């Protein structure tokens, strides 16, 4: 199953490393799209079909929380899983994000296994056995 993935982070380095990590994790992608903030991500979501989003929280213009809130008001966008990838270590903040509807959380620095475990869960591979 090939996925259309959207990577949202204001750091081009992080987006590049995430894309490389997806490949290292053996995750098959059809299209990998990049956005530097929540606003750019919403623009892309208005034009392209995306299966999965990996997004940072702290970003200029529109942060990750605002992006998730705006997605929740759109019938189609609110069905797209959002995985937050952040340096954030506060369980309090992570619980707040889960209440807002994020699917999962990965803390930086990340490993390919972190991405693989989440994608396997989302695509049902972990339940296949």
């Amino acid at each position, binding site marked *: 199953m090939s996925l259309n993935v959207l990577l949202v982070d204001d*750091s*081009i*380095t*992080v987006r*590049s*490393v995430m894309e*490389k990590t997806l490949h290292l994790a053996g995750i098959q992608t059809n299209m990998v799209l990049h956005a530097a903030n929540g606003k750019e991500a919403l623009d892309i979501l208005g034009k392209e079909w995306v299966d999965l989003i990996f997004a940072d929280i*702290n970003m*200029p213009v529109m942060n990750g929380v605002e992006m998730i809130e705006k997605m929740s008001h759109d019938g189609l966008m609110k069905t797209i899983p959002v995985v937050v990838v*952040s*340096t*954030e*270590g*506060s*369980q*309090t*903040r992570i619980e707040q994000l889960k209440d807002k509807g994020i699917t999962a959380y990965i*803390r*930086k*620095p990340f*490993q390919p296994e972190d991405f693989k475990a989440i994608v396997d869960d989302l695509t049902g591979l972990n339940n296949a056995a």
Partner: protein
Amino acid sequence: MQLETQQPMTDVFCRVMESLAFYFVDPVNKADVNIHALDMPYRQLSMRFEGPHHGSLVMYIPQSMTPVIWANMLGVDESEAHDAEQQNDAIRELLNVICGQTLTELWGTEPVFNLHVPQLQDLDKVSLAHTLTRPSTCCFSSDDGIILLEIHVDETC
């Protein structure tokens, strides 16, 4: 405060440098550092944090280290390092991760902190001797030279 921050900061720094930048550093005793080893162009990166504790984390790295970090993070050859802004982006992200991990190491996973955008400044052969003497400064050796890391805590709410 100084005694409580040194070991956690050292642990976090070594761990993140290795896992994110594939860059190996060794903690060194400040008293053993030859002050002339700092007599080279440096870059100062600082990141402010606000929450139950306010302050900033500051890192001083040799300027020659920037393209190495960028190349290591992206898994490309250092000779491909042409875009200064992309290299700056890489070391800002490095400090971002170090800061996030340090705050958790120092104060646990309950507090919520807001992190500001890392600020970057070139230091041309400025004396870092005073930084070396501050109690909260951690010191590391690397292939590119001495690296300094210090934390300033303004206040406790």
